[in-house]
C-alpha cells in the first residue's frame, strides 16, 4: 500500500463522517431552537423539563448514550428497528446531545437580544408567536452563528465515536489502514489533518461572519 492508496481508503470514510455530523447537527437544531424558546417564554414546569434534558445530555458521555441506545434500547425487540442500526444510533445520540448544546447557544442569544425587541413587536399587534418568528428568530440566528460553528466542529470530531458501534467512518478507515499496512503513523496524521480541514475553515468562517454581522446591525 502506498501513501495515496492509504489516503484514498481513509477518504472513503469521509462521506459517512460528514453525514453523521450534518444530520446530527440538523437534529440538534430541530430540538435546540424550540427548546430555547420554550425555556425562555413558558412556565416553570416546562423550564424545569428543558433544564433537565440539557443537564442530562450534557453530562453523560456520548459513548454511554450511544452504547445504551444501541445495546439497551436496541436490545428490546420492538425497538430493534432502528436502534440496531449503528449509523442511526450514532447520529441520533449526537443529535440529542447537540440539541442540548444548541438550546443553550440559542437561549443565550435570545437573552442577548433582550425583551425590548419583543415588546416593540407586541406594540404593533404581533402575537407572541409572530414576534418570535419575525423578530426574535432572525436575530437569534445572527447572534448564534459563531456558537453554531463551534457546535458543528464538535460534532465532526465526536462523530468519530461512532467507530465503537462499527460505523465505517473516517476514523474506522484509518484504523483499518493501520491494521493492514502496519503503518502506525501516517493513517492517524492524515486523519487528524482531515478532521482539521473539515472543522476549522467552516467554524472560522461562521465565527467571523457572525461577528461581522452582529457589529453591522448593532446587535
Amino acid at each position, binding site marked *: 500500500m502506498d501513501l495515496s492508496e492509504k489516503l484514498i481508503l481513509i477518504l472513503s470514510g469521509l462521506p459517512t463522517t460528514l453525514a453523521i455530523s450534518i444530520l446530527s447537527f440538523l437534529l440538534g437544531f430541530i430540538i435546540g431552537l424550540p427548546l430555547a424558546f420554550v425555556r425562555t417564554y413558558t412556565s416553570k414546569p416546562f423550564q424545569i423539563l428543558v433544564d433537565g434534558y440539557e443537564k442530562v445530555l450534557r453530562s453523560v458521555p456520548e459513548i454511554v448514550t450511544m452504547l445504551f441506545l444501541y445495546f439497551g434500547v436496541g436490545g428490546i425487540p420492538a425497538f430493534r428497528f432502528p436502534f440496531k442500526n449503528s449509523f442511526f444510533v450514532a447520529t441520533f445520540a449526537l443529535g440529542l446531545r447537540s440539541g442540548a448544546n444548541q438550546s443553550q447557544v440559542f437561549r443565550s442569544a435570545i437573552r442577548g437580544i433582550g425583551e*425590548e*425587541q419583543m*415588546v*416593540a*413587536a*407586541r*406594540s*404593533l*399587534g*404581533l*402575537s407572541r408567536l*409572530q414576534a418570535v418568528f*419575525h*423578530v426574535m428568530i*432572525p*436575530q437569534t440566528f*445572527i447572534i448564534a452563528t459563531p456558537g453554531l460553528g463551534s457546535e458543528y466542529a464538535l460534532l465532526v470530531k465526536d462523530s468519530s465515536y461512532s467507530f465503537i458501534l462499527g460505523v465505517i467512518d473516517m476514523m474506522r478507515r484509518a484504523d483499518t489502514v493501520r491494521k493492514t499496512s502496519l503503518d502506525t503513523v501516517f493513517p492517524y496524521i492524515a486523519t487528524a489533518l482531515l478532521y482539521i480541514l473539515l472543522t476549522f475553515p467552516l467554524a472560522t468562517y461562521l465565527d467571523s461572519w457572525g461577528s461581522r454581522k452582529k457589529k*453591522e*446591525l*448593532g*446587535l
Partner: protein
Amino acid sequence: MADTVLECRNLWKIYGKITAVKDVSLEVKEGDIKLVFGPSGSGKSTLARCLAMLTTPTKGEVILTGENLTRSGVDLNKARARIGFVFQHIWLFHHLTALGNVELGLRQVLKLPKEEARERALQALREVKMEGWAEHYPAQMSGGQQQRVGIARALAMNPEIIILDEPTSSLDPELTGEVVDTLRDLAQKGTTMLVISHEMTFAREVADEMIFIDEGAIIERGPPELFFTNPTSERARRFMARLIKRTRRE
C-alpha cells in the same frame, strides 16, 4: 363633542413594594394632544405601557373606544394594533431596514399584500422625511433618524391614537429638534396623541392639556397656560421652574 378614543379609570400598577402608577384616570378624545410629564421614576413609562396594554395593570380599567381592554377574553393583539407606540429608547428591529421595520406590522398584523404594504410604509417614511433611508439598517442611522422611523412604524398602522414615551429623551440635544419637528407635523394633522415629554416649547405650542405626574399619581392637570403662569401645587411649581431654566440654557 369629540369621541373618547382611549381612557383609563383608577389605574394602578404595583411592582412588589413599588407603586409605579397610583389611581390614575384620564381620557384622550379624538384630536386631543395630552402631554404627560414629571420627574424621572415617577411612573410615566409605566402609565404609557399600561395604556397600550403592553403591561397588565394591577387594578383599574383601560378603555379603547368603548371596549374595556382589562376584561378577560379581549383580543389584545387587535387592540394593540390600533394604538401606536413610540418608545423612549426607540427599539427599532435591528435586523430589518427602515422599510422592513415599518412594513412588518402592515404585513403580519394588517395582512396587507406586499405591494400595498410597501406603498404605505414608504408613505409613512415620507411623512417623517425618511424615505431616502428606506433601505438602511437602524445601526446606520443617527438616533434622531431612528426615532423618526420609530414614529413612522407606529404611524403606518393608521392607529386611533399614538402614545409617545419621551421620544427625544435618549437623543443628543442637537438631534431632538428634527424629532420635535416631526411631532409638530403630526399635531398639525390633528393626530390624537398622548406624549410624554419635557420639551416645554413644544408642549406650550401644541398640548391641549398637560398632566403632571409624581410618584405615580396625577398631581396637577390643566391647559399649558396654567403650568407656565401659575401652577397650583408646590411640586409642579418647582418642577416647572427647573424645566424652564433648563430650556433657557439650551
